[in-house]
């Protein structure tokens, strides 16, 4: 059995990691840290885990050595603790935003503070199997992309890589409330957040930089909080290159994702669920991608959806670790999602 520990295990992403790890056939979670809840039972913070674990949270100071260590602590704080934790595991997987951007300048611009460990930035492999599967097989430091960034990259990659789009991309992201984590303030009070259409990032959302870094495209990104707990959907408005028709677009998606276990192409002409939406993805590791296009050389709308805590975080991290340890890529990630839900 592979031994695993989770830092920041009291948060939403930490809880999701625990859920997935506890159901994994080849991994044993042996440590879950929380400073605030040290000494308390894990299933107090994560009531879905009742009956699945008797673990209690421990402080970070009590970490031993593990095969793999996941960090699900807050961005801006993670860069301070991660350097001191590298010795505690063979493989370190960071889910915060702190080691995603290769360029410390860009980090400063998007996170508003200086990076405190810029020297480590170049040492992480991006935890996106659909682009870096080979490198992940041997990576010892993995940085999992942001939830909206993952959706945006997976929507754009087939066309961007094949040179089928031109110019700037406008990304319109929508997200549920769990994306803000468990320690959120008054903006996440139920009476205020419920039924919201909150344009919290009208221009220049932070994941813009991640998507640009991965696709090579100029990206403008808007983000809105809507009524949902889990779920991210992105709409990418692109201009198709000269002569590119719908059949070319469809073929590009089909070919790019044919062998991917967790990307489905959804662009249907009938039925209620013609394009990707997160409603049917809660708990599942799928990222559904789809598209609609005008006539050749016209406009395209590319759509992706995922569960921010799964393919947008903990599930994606698990998939990377499965790859790294040579395990079946879908281990621990078999849940299909619910309909209706």
């Amino acid at each position, binding site marked *: 059995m592979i031994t695993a520990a989770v830092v920041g295990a009291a948060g939403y992403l930490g809880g999701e990691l625990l859920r997935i790890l506890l159901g994994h056939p080849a991994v044993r979670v042996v440590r879950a840290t929380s400073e605030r809840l040290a000494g308390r039972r894990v299933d107090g913070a994560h009531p879905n885990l009742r009956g699945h674990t008797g673990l209690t949270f421990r402080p970070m100071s009590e970490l031993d050595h593990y095969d793999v260590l996941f960090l699900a602590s807050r961005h801006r704080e993670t860069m301070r603790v991660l350097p001191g934790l590298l010795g505690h595991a063979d493989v370190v997987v960071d889910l915060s935003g702190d080691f995603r951007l290769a360029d410390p300048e860009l980090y400063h611009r998007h996170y508003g503070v200086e990076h405190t460990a810029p020297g480590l930035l170049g040492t992480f492999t991006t935890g996106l199997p659909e682009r870096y599967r080979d490198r992940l097989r041997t990576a010892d430091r993995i940085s999992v992309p942001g939830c909206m960034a993952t959706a945006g990259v997976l929507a754009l990659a087939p066309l961007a890589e094949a040179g089928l789009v031109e110019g700037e991309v406008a990304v319109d992201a929508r997200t549920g409330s769990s994306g803000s984590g468990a320690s959120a303030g008054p903006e996440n009070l139920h009476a205020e957040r419920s039924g919201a259409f909150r344009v919290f990032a009208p221009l220049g959302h932070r994941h813009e930089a991640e998507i640009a870094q991965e696709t090579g495209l100029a990206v403008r990104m808007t983000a809105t909080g809507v009524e949902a707990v889990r779920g991210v959907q992105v709409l990418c408005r692109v201009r198709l290159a000269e002569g590119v028709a719908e*059949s070319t677009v*469809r*073929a590009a998606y089909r070919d790019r994702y044919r062998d991917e276990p967790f990307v489905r*192409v959804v*662009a249907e*002409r*009938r*039925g209620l669920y*013609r394009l990707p939406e997160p409603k049917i993805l809660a708990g599942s590791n799928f990222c559904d991608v789809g598209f609609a296009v005008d006539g050749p050389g016209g406009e395209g709308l590319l759509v992706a959806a995922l569960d921010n805590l799964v393919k947008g975080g903990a599930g994606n991290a698990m998939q990377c670790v499965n790859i790294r340890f040579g395990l079946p890529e879908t281990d621990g990630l078999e849940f299909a999602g619910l309909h209706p839900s």
Partner: protein
Amino acid sequence: MTATECPACEASVVVDDAVLPNEIVECGDCRSELEVVTTEPVLLALAPTIEEDWGE
């Protein structure tokens, strides 16, 4: 089983050999309803669909 091409999206559509003219099959990729026009060879045409109306 015969493989033919979806007239809507060019995906490959596999049709049962026992299929009859006028039968409706479904494209697995774009989910168009396809009408069997001829069977030897199997030729498919897009069946008309009704648009949903999301009103305003």
